[in-house]
């Protein structure tokens, strides 16, 4: 027996390829949507991996530092260093903001790290050009995704920084590239007030009788000086010593230091389960709608193609073709269309994924799931056409 479906497809290949390409672009969009989600998850994992930390120490009762604001005193790390099992501990600050370069600005996550602390958690892992930050002020290491070049002068708040190094794949959980600057500058950037506000604050402090008591000269100056420094950081990243289990190291810090400590697994749960959960649902909705639209298109095309062959189907039935054979022919055509669509979609998605501004990760597993979904949709979509074909009366072939 020959394949009736195959012959029909070969005969009308133009129609099939054309509709297959249309369907394929839709499938490509669907695969890309899944890739956007995977990219978000991957960005979150990369953020955690590249931070090089085993534990995140943050303000009590917060989900910081990525999902919620968290602030700690910048000397907390010293006491943490004294805890059993702690190998390295480093202060970091995170602040997502616009970083200016001349006229244009780039959305970036500004990370404050201790200069010269190469190898400590939170530092850029490896550089593709230039060097690490060595001075305590006005140097920056930027992810290449920012588009900054070595030697360029970028502006963060009121200060200018020279790009001394470039790194790659250092992104925030939102996919924004990172810009590393010295910790002190970052602390200042986070809490820096404009000049008017500083003048205002000084006036208010000076007007406060509590700081102007006779007999304690210099109190006002001391208060004003303390107001203009920012002793806060967002988190302390901890590497545990070899042979220690992170959770076992975390527990005493939680208990004795009254700080929140997250392990890598808990942090991942926060990022993926909470931070990008709404975005994931959004994408899920898109996937459902795209699946329905694809199904409607396949159903419509297969139905129309079948209606165009009513006469042939009547003749096939008259000369003794089984209903099963005819249903099989329609089903195979639907699957064939799905196959063309999937191949086109996969190629299209692979082609356009790198052009997206945020990371799009096309996982082979998603392709397999997508392929199965396309096939299932095609089977369901051919039901309508098969019903129409089975209703065709062989007497129609003889006519009036």
């Amino acid at each position, binding site marked *: 027996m020959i394949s009736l479906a195959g012959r029909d497809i070969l*005969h009308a290949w133009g129609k099939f390829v054309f509709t297959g390409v249309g369907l394929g672009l839709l499938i490509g969009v669907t695969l890309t949507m899944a890739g956007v989600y995977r990219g978000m998850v991957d960005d979150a994992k990369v953020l955690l991996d590249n931070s090089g930390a085993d534990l995140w120490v943050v303000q009590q009762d917060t989900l910081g530092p990525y999902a919620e604001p968290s602030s700690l005193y910048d000397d907390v790390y010293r006491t943490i260093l004294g805890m059993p099992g702690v190998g390295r501990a480093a202060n970091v600050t995170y602040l997502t903001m616009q970083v200016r370069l001349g006229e244009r600005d780039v959305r970036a996550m500004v990370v404050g790290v201790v200069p010269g602390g190469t190898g400590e958690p939170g530092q850029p892992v490896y550089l593709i050009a230039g060097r690490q930050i060595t001075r305590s002020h006005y140097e920056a290491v930027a992810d290449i995704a920012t588009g900054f070049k070595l030697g360029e002068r970028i502006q963060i708040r009121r200060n200018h920084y020279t790009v001394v190094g470039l790194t790659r794949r250092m992104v925030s959980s939102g996919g924004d590239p990172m810009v590393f600057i010295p910790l002190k500058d970052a602390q200042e950037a986070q809490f820096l007030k404009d000049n008017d506000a500083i003048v205002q604050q000084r006036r208010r402090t000076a007007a406060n009788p509590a700081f102007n008591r006779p007999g304690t000269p210099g109190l006002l100056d001391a208060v004003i000086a303390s107001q203009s420094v920012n002793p806060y950081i967002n988190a302390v990243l901890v590497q545990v010593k070899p042979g220690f289990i992170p959770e076992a190291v975390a527990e005493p810090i939680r208990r004795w230091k009254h700080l929140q400590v997250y392990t890598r697994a808990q942090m991942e749960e926060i990022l993926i389960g909470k931070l990008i959960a709404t975005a994931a649902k959004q994408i899920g909705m898109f996937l459902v709608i795209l699946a329905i639209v694809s199904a409607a298109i396949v159903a419509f095309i297969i139905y129309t193609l079948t209606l165009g062959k009513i006469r*042939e189907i009547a*003749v096939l039935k*008259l000369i003794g073709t089984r209903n099963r054979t005819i249903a099989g022919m329609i089903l195979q055509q639907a699957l064939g269309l799905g196959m063309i669509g999937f191949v086109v979609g996969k190629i299209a998605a692979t082609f356009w994924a790198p052009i997206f501004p945020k990371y799009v990760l096309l996982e082979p597993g998603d392709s397999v799931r997508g392929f199965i979904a396309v096939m299932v949709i095609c089977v369901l979509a051919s039901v309508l056409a098969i019903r129409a074909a089975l209703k065709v009366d062989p007497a129609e072939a003889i006519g009036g």
Partner: protein
Amino acid sequence: MADMLGKGIRIEGLRKRYGKGDTAVDALKGVDMQVAPGEVVGLIGPSGSGKSTLLKCLGAVIEPTGGRMTLGEEVIYDNRWTTADLRALRRDRIGFVFQAPYLIPFLDVTDNVALLPMLAGRSNAESRKRALELLEALDVAHRAKAMPSQLSGGEQQRVAIARALVNRPPVILADEPTAPLDSERALAVIHILNRMARQYETAIIVVTHDEKIIPTFKRIYHIRDGKTQEEAGEGRVFEPDGG
């Protein structure tokens, strides 16, 4: 005629009523007909007289209301279908030729013909061999690899005849097979049907309005108002050029 009884087609008192109650139409009111193997008979009658209805009953696509039909030695209808698998009956025992050839547009000429033996479970190779033999006999073997849309009307009709014959059915039902053809081609088709009827011992019924071919039948059934009347035809033999 007596030696032919028990072979070919026999129809006795066949009735067909469409619909029920007030709107019922009695399309066939007791049709009697006999066609011997190797014989080509004409079936003529005015529009609405029941020709297509008779072919559909014989072709096992609509159920008669009453009467009896015999194919070869076997009663195929005796107030109910006695043959369980009408699909197999149509496939193996009846060949159809229509006014339009109705070839399957996505199969080439060979496979259009070979499809029937394939459906009957024969191998592709054997089916194609049989198809080519018939295409040879019908003078269209040189177009065996062409698609139906690339053939002339007469060639298409010959392919349709090959398809009707390929499973060696005892009966061929032809509904206006010459309508779209000019008189020379129309006569050629009738010549082929006569030759094939003799060669394969097939009983052939040709429904027609076509004045050109009516003189070629030896016997003609007139159908009027759902009843048939047999009469002798001229039985003029037509030999195509060079044949």
